[in-house]
């Protein structure tokens, strides 16, 4: 049980760190650059790409920090898992439609991954989100401090 809790903690921290890095590198850069990447997936209208490019990095940041700090851990794990599932579907559609994306856009200008590599990374992240979600553990989390209330 203790090992499972430790595994869940490591999963939570890893996914949180990845989301924070991905979110911060995109949120600190001009949204138009990320909007171009979103547009190249050819899944959403261009008019939505720019607002999405402004919001998505902040969602990644908030969920990432919630996971790291253990704030609403279960909900944060579920949202992170849903996000990585959506990313997986988007990348799968690009691979199936053979859209030549030089860069998945996952980490802004910080790191470049091909769609195939991004698919593997997102699969791993989804699995780790599942571990964090399915384990009832408040190890090193602010949730346990909040719940104590004393």
């Amino acid at each position, binding site marked *: 049980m203790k090992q499972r809790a430790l595994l869940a903690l490591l999963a939570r921290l890893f996914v949180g760190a990845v989301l924070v890095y991905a979110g911060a590198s995109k949120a600190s*850069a001009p949204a138009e650059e990320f909007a171009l990447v979103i*547009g190249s997936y050819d899944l959403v209208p261009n008019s939505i790409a720019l607002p999405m490019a402004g919001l998505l990095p*902040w969602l990644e*940041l*908030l969920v990432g*920090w919630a996971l790291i700090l253990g704030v609403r851990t279960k909900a944060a794990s579920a949202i992170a898992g849903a996000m990585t599932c959506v990313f997986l579907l988007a990348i799968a559609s690009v691979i199936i439609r053979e859209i030549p994306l030089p860069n998945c856009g996952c980490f802004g*200008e910080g790191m470049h991954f091909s769609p195939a590599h991004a698919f593997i990374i997102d699969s791993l992240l989804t699995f780790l989100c599942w571990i964090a979600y399915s384990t009832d553990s408040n190890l090193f989390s602010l949730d346990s401090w909040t*719940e104590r*209330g004393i």
Partner: protein
Amino acid sequence: MMSVMRRKFSRRLATYALVLAASVLSTVSVGRAKKPFSPAAPEFRRKGGAGAPLEIVEFSDFQCPACRYAEAPLRQIFSVYDGKIRFVFKHYPLPPRVHAWAKVSALAAECAGRQGKFWEFHDRLYDKQTEWSNEKAEIFFASYARDLKLDVPAWDACRTGPDAAAAIASDMEDGNNAWVASTPTFFINGRRFVGGKQLAELGTLFMDRELKHQ
């Protein structure tokens, strides 16, 4: 009991505030300080009157297919907004691992510009991009120079000299200061539009708004 509830509530609020603060701080710390970029360019890389209400600055790479595709909407914009645009072309050749002939093509156009034929060379490079984007690039550049009746020895000397290279390096520094990450990137009155699609769809809406407010 009430005090425990209250404490739990205030702790919960504090954790939310902590998440928000950490998100803002990490963005600020990852982001570099944005430096101003200069739209300055030699006269031969400018088009339109100084008093035009719309200024478009393009950071471009002659070997980049997306830049070639952006030429069509750009030319259409010039015809629709005739007399209302001052246009500045800035070199932003991508690294050799991405586009092996981007830098040499930028030098070729820059040196053609110093003989008053920048736009002719510019158009030729985009129109014939698929022809010269290979190891025979130098042969094609020389043939374009001859076709445009350039002083070829002077043009050759310019391409290997320090001035043209310095001008391109200066443009690239401006591009880096403006956080240009892909080409073509356009700034219309300072507002960024990346790629021909954004330029055509959102850029024109923005230009109409800018014109309305002037």
